[in-house]
């Protein structure tokens, strides 16, 4: 009797647990057959549509496998992993700092393969966090707003333009709200770390009625519509993905330096399918770093830097340093400073 009851009980329990998910997924989609033998549950901050071809490519070679893809914000993702680590197999996130913290705090599983060994060392932290894209923090420009002006190439050019033509740009500058967007916060802190000019630029932005956005989508659309003359620190990959807006936005990779965000994947500690999860991660890494690449790979493949070149691209360094800005006091202090720079009334 007891044995008959147990499975029923377990099913009931898992249903109950599923209904109690600690987050609300923005979107959820099943890839692969409904009746699959194994199902990998993937938490991701990446637009489902963006990764879909690559995931389907993976499933083509794994017929008995399905993927449950949950799309959600980076903070929610972190929260989901910490409170409900057992439910999921892989987390894919653009929030490098949070991914590193997950690995540092022991929520992830080590994975080693030929691909993890062949990939660039700076994109792999402890064989736990695997970067599989390089996406620049760019400035999106509205070509109409810059009519008659020389297009800026570096941050200094931009500052000079804003100083000369405050009337033209006032109220037409946008950037992420660092307090609301994890990615915005990451880019802002990396800027502050890299350049002394950052705070000055924020003050100028602030003096020109900076508009803050939670998400890249609306920001890019506002630029395309001409409501914004420029949006600062927008992910170039998102802008490029909006092929519908091509010609209405210009993507500027600042020549002084361009921070490169690494989208990364981690295998979660309590996964029941470490082997399969590893294969999926390897699939992403192969598309990103192997010489052959993969036509389904949605991101631009930048040349892999070997340090000596003076290219402006700077991949954000994975490692414990990223956790500094996650510190409660540090974050409070940084946001306080940032707000006082961008909000000048």
């Amino acid at each position, binding site marked *: 009797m007891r044995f008959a009851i147990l499975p029923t009980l377990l099913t009931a329990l898992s249903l109950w647990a599923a209904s109690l998910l600690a987050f609300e997924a923005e979107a959820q989609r099943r890839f692969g057959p409904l009746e699959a033998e194994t199902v990998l549950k993937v938490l991701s901050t990446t637009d489902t549509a963006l990764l879909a071809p690559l995931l389907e490519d993976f499933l083509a070679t794994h017929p008995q496998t399905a993927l449950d893809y949950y799309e959600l914000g980076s903070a929610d993702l972190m929260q989901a992993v910490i409170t409900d680590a057992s439910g999921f197999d892989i987390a894919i996130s653009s929030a490098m700092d949070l991914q590193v913290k997950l690995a*540092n705090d022991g929520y992830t599983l080590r994975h080693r393969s030929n691909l993890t060994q062949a990939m660039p060392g700076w994109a792999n932290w402890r064989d736990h966090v695997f970067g599989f894209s390089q996406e620049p923090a760019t400035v999106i420009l509205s070509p109409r707003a810059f009519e008659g002006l020389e297009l800026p190439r570096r941050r200094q050019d931009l500052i000079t333009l804003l100083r000369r033509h405050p009337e033209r740009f006032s109220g037409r500058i946008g950037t992420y709200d660092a307090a609301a967007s994890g990615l915005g916060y990451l880019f802002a802190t990396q800027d502050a770390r890299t350049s002394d000019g950052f705070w000055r630029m924020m003050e100028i932005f602030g003096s020109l009625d900076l508009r803050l956005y939670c998400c890249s989508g609306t920001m890019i659309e506002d630029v395309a519509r001409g409501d914004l003359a420029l949006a600062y620190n927008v992910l170039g990959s998102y802008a490029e993905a909006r092929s519908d807006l091509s010609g209405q936005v210009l993507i500027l990779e600042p020549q002084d330096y361009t921070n490169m965000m690494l989208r990364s994947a981690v295998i979660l500690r309590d996964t029941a399918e470490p082997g399969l999860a590893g294969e999926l991660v390897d699939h992403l890494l192969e598309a990103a770093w192997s010489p052959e690449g993969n036509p389904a790979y949605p991101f631009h493949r930048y040349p892999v830097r070997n340090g000596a070149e003076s290219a402006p691209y700077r991949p954000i360094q994975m490692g414990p340093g990223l956790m500094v800005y996650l510190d409660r006091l540090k974050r409070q202090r940084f946001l306080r400073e940032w707000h006082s720079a961008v909000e000048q009334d």
Partner: protein
Amino acid sequence: MTDQPTPDARLRSSGSLRRRLALQLVGSAAVLASLLFFAVLGFTRDVSQRSHDSILLASATSLMDSVTIEEGQVTLDIPYAALSMLGNISDDRVFYRVTLDDSTLTGYGDLPEAPAGARLEEPGYWTGSYRGAGLRSVTLRRRMSLDSGAAGIAITVAQTREGQQAELAALTRSALALGGGFFAIAALLALWTAQSSIRPLQVLTGVVSRRGPKDLRPVQRAVPSEMLPLVHSLNRFIERLRVSLTRSEEFIAEAAHRVRTPLATVRTQAEITLRRVEKPENRNSLREMIRAIDESSRAAGQLLDHAMVTFRTDSLERKPVDLQALAEELVGRLRPVAELKDIALVLEAGSVPPVPGDAILIQNALRNILDNAIKYAPPDSEVAISVTMDQSAVTIAVTDEAGGFPEAEKNALTERFVRGSNAAGTIGSGLGLTIAREVAEAHGGRLVLSTSSTGAGACVSLSFPLS
């Protein structure tokens, strides 16, 4: 005698000196190598631990430096480098915690603090485990004065030890290789040392065991000072042996000499008496008496000769001896004796180069051999003496027709006092061939007893090396 000393069954070995030496040296090499291993390991571990600690401390210090008091509140602004510097030494996980009077300001609230050092300002270190991983941590403590009074701030920075452990494993491997290499070299040197330190012993053994049986000269070879007492005692022992041998030879010679003279007198008297006595039984007993006297004086004479040979071979003089002339002279002297038995002595001697030696001894040896030939040969026979040479030696061969040596006894005949079964009825002492052999051997030559080519008698040859 062979070169190798035959091991004496009664002599027990107390083990090999070389092996014992080698074992001790190899043993001490092993001890030293393991000492070296542990010393190097301890030292490098210490250095590695200290360098890790110093980076942890640098991190904690930079955190401490960022502590400020704002509006009466303690706060801190963690520098980016404080944590990223830890990422530069290894890919290990990093934890930190800042507490103010035991309440966590920021960081990991459950991270254990390292116990305080001897003084408050001294950093405390701790090795333990946290979140399932081995950890090394440092805690820095300061007192701060706030508006609300004094408060204690403690900053803990910790890192997991995977990188350090990998480094320690590599260090252990190199320390092991170092110790092993040291041991291998030391062991080789130990074996070599053991071998070379017993070499003088082997040399001495060789020198002593290669000696001829009569060689009683002291050992002159240079030996290590530790062996001097042994060689000294050995030499004293040899000297005592030589002295006592000489003394007994002298005693025998003296005794023989003292016996011979009165015997001669007794024999003369007995012969005179024989001529006077007529009764056959008296004459017979007198003849018996004379024969016994002859026997005794022959023995005395041979004993004397033997003693003389022994004495002269002791320190053999080596002057060129012309064996052809020597043989001619001796054959000439013995011819009258041989003619008494109608024995013809035939000498065939070409000219030969001189051999180094003692003419008196060689003459004595040859005389004994000729003596035998004449004594044991039937009357009216021939004794042939030849002197020949080959590349290395001159050989004097005496061939008779006396029926040869009894084959079964041949080997023993050159021993002292041994006489053959064919010697019954002839006067003799059994020393003649002994003398001949000893003389030959003293000169480095040989005495060979064989059967003559015709088979009618014996062929005795004496050979002497040319140099």
